[in-house]
């Protein structure tokens, strides 16, 4: 038992030296996790789209239509940049990107309203972003409901104040957006990116280490803790895994605690719960990364191999395309990745304030992944030595020395 722990400890120390002697690995393990989350938070930090530029074509040009325009302009999300005479002029302005939408008020607007007929306002939106569309449509809806309520009272005749209020809106409603009160983009996307950054940089860093071992044919460095001393692959995998994980426990304090704090992202989770949840995540991500790392036959190849995966991994986590709408096959594949339960759990705890029992399923899945990927990483180590180390050419390193 003592030997087991000592061996793991020495592998751990030895691997730390390997990590810190390679500037490429230091870059991927420390600098990128430090800088990247800040960059992403900065990118999305404005959270919402305000003052979307629109052009108004007001063919009615009446007191009512001007009131409509004024109210739309007064709303936070829309900014009326110009009034033009006809649609063609407005379209040209949109083509020139002077505005992202057109509000068309027909000539009959005021007449219709004054003769108790329904009138329509047309909203054309550039679809380069769904957020432009949303801002314009919601603002116009809001204004039309508000003005509509006033007009309704005029039509139906005034009564007491309470009666008028009831005529304006027989049923009141209220929308409460949970967990992401500002409906912000950063608050929704950045927590998922933070979790993914941890897994992906681990993947890149460990892949670089293995690739470098291959380039330099330093299989003894990879398999020994000191000169001439063989370590059993099971212990080797644990020791190395612990080395990377401990580094990431420090990194993740920055990534998951300080960055959200700096950028005012939602952070209502209990730090202790997050830490407890994070522990298996980092271990699972480490062993997952180690498993894949043995495919990196050269130092630089890890970039070519895995960088693109960030995109499918993020989408498969179900943060943007809802998890319930993801086809079952993809859900199954997604659960092979530590990032999926990691993101689900972290978002639940950090953003939604869940307790550990609420994310118990994800927590257990992560522990299962820890064990499975640890075993796989050990097997992959055999495969790697078998294939790459000239010393072993086809015969497995002894397993009896455990």
């Amino acid at each position: 038992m003592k030997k087991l722990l000592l061996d793991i400890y020495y592998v751990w120390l030895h691997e730390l030296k390997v990590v810190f002697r390679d500037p490429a690995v230091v870059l991927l393990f420390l600098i990128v996790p430090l800088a990247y989350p800040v960059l992403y938070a900065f990118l999305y930090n404005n959270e919402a789209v305000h003052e979307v530029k629109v052009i108004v074509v007001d063919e009615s040009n009446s007191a009512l239509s001007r009131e409509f325009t004024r109210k739309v302009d007064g709303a936070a999300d829309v900014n009326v940049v110009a009034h033009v005479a006809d649609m063609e002029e407005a379209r040209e302005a949109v083509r020139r990107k002077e505005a992202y939408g057109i509000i068309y008020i027909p000539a009959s607007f005021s007449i219709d309203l004054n003769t108790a007929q329904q009138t329509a306002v047309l909203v054309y939106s550039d679809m380069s972003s769904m957020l432009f569309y949303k801002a314009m449509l919601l603002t116009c809806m809001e204004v039309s409901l508000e003005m509509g309520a006033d007009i309704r009272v005029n039509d139906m005749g005034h009564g007491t104040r309470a009666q008028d209020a009831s005529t304006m809106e027989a049923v009141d409603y209220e929308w409460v957006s949970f967990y992401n009160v500002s409906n912000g983009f950063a608050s929704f996307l950045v927590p998922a990116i933070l979790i993914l950054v941890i897994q992906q940089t681990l993947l890149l860093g460990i892949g670089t280490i293995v690739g470098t071992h291959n380039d330099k044919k330093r299989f003894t460095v990879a398999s020994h803790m000191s000169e001439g001393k063989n370590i059993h692959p099971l212990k080797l995998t644990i020791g190395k895994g612990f080395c990377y994980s401990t580094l990431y426990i420090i990194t993740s304090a920055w990534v998951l605690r300080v960055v959200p704090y700096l950028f005012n992202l939602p952070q209502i989770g209990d730090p202790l719960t997050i830490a407890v949840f994070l522990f298996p995540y980092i271990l699972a991500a480490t062993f997952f990364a180690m498993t894949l790392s043995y495919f990196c036959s050269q130092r630089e190849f890890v970039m070519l191999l895995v960088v693109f995966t960030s995109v499918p991994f993020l989408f498969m986590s179900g943060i943007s395309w809802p998890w319930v709408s993801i086809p079952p096959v993809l859900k199954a594949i997604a659960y092979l990745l530590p990032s999926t339960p990691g993101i689900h759990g972290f978002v639940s705890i950090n953003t939604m304030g869940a307790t550990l029992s609420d994310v118990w399923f994800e927590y257990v899945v992560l522990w299962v992944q820890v064990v499975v990927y640890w075993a796989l990483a050990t097997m992959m180590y055999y495969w790697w030595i078998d294939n790459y180390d000239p010393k072993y050419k086809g015969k497995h390193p002894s397993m009896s020395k455990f």
Partner: protein
Amino acid sequence: MASEKGMWVVFIREWKRILSSKICIWGMIVAPLLTFGLLMYMMSAGLPTKIPIAVVDLDNSLTSRSLVRQLDAFAKTDIKFKSLSFKEARVEMERGKVYGVFTIPRNFAKDAISGNRPKIVFYTNNAFLISGSLLFQDMKTISVLASASVGLRMGEAKGYTQGQLMPILQPISIEAHPIGNPMLNYSVYLNNVLTPGIIFLILAMFTISSFGSEVKMGTGRKFLDLAGGSTVKAIFGKILPYTILFFVLSLFFMSVLYYYNNFPLNSGFFPICFAYLCLILSAQGFGLMLLAVFGNYRLSLSAASLLGMISFSITGFSFPSIAMSPVLYALSFLFPLRHFFLIYVDQALNGIAWQYSAYHYATLLGFFFLGLICMGRVRNFMYENVYEE
């Protein structure tokens, strides 16, 4: 002699290098196809359907039940729980089982008819912004409808006819015309930009790797020699196979996007096809530039992967660049994908004349020419033939 040296020799040699390398096959053929297939399959529904919600109906009257039925009839909403207390519903939301809660107060029907303005409250989980927004639309529509249907009954009681009432209930209606994407299809919205983004990322990296790997193997000088000592022939012979490969790949992607899936393509095939070609060239130029700037295989590769990944965000197809900090908005124009995105919006969605996009086409080609200007440095990098350390 011409057959032993020159651009053609380099060109053929590069094809052999690509086809005999597992990493090239994986990274340039399997990876983009896999990602593309996966994302297209995932979003094949266009809009997420059947997002689960819980309804807390404390009234349980004829009116409230009909309201709940109408809500359930929406494609986007799926009522998963009907008889929970609010507390239970909240717990389900916390567990991620439902994404929204719709509550109808006690005595809803009675209060509505007697003019006491009962209040419907609905909650959405906006930690998942897209699900939250989609549910918000449905639940808001139902709340407004509830108001209208009560108004209808009250109006009828006052002696108005239905024909008279409709304009009174909703005097101003809003007609929305989302230009180019009338179904608000998310697959159109995302995959049209994610796909070229992946192409850009991968191609920029492989452009660097095609030069870097030569230096690493110490064949940099041999390679220059094969081209007959001409820098132009050497560089073009090397990058041309990648241009062809990725153009074929793009043609396949375009056929799936615009032909088989009928995604909007309002200016026809050629403007978008040319945009893809320009993007491919710009990615190669971008790669050459990074290689020239860093003069180091690994560093330029890291830079390409970092910048390639940021492209996805700074391009602004998810969160518009114009709403970002002004510094980032300015910087976004240094990313080729941003220009491709703007071409795509105008040519595929808006369907306007190509002249409006001319500046962006020119910028994409500009990235390629900037890369060519750096050719001399890349040649020196190959000639020095020194791998790091």
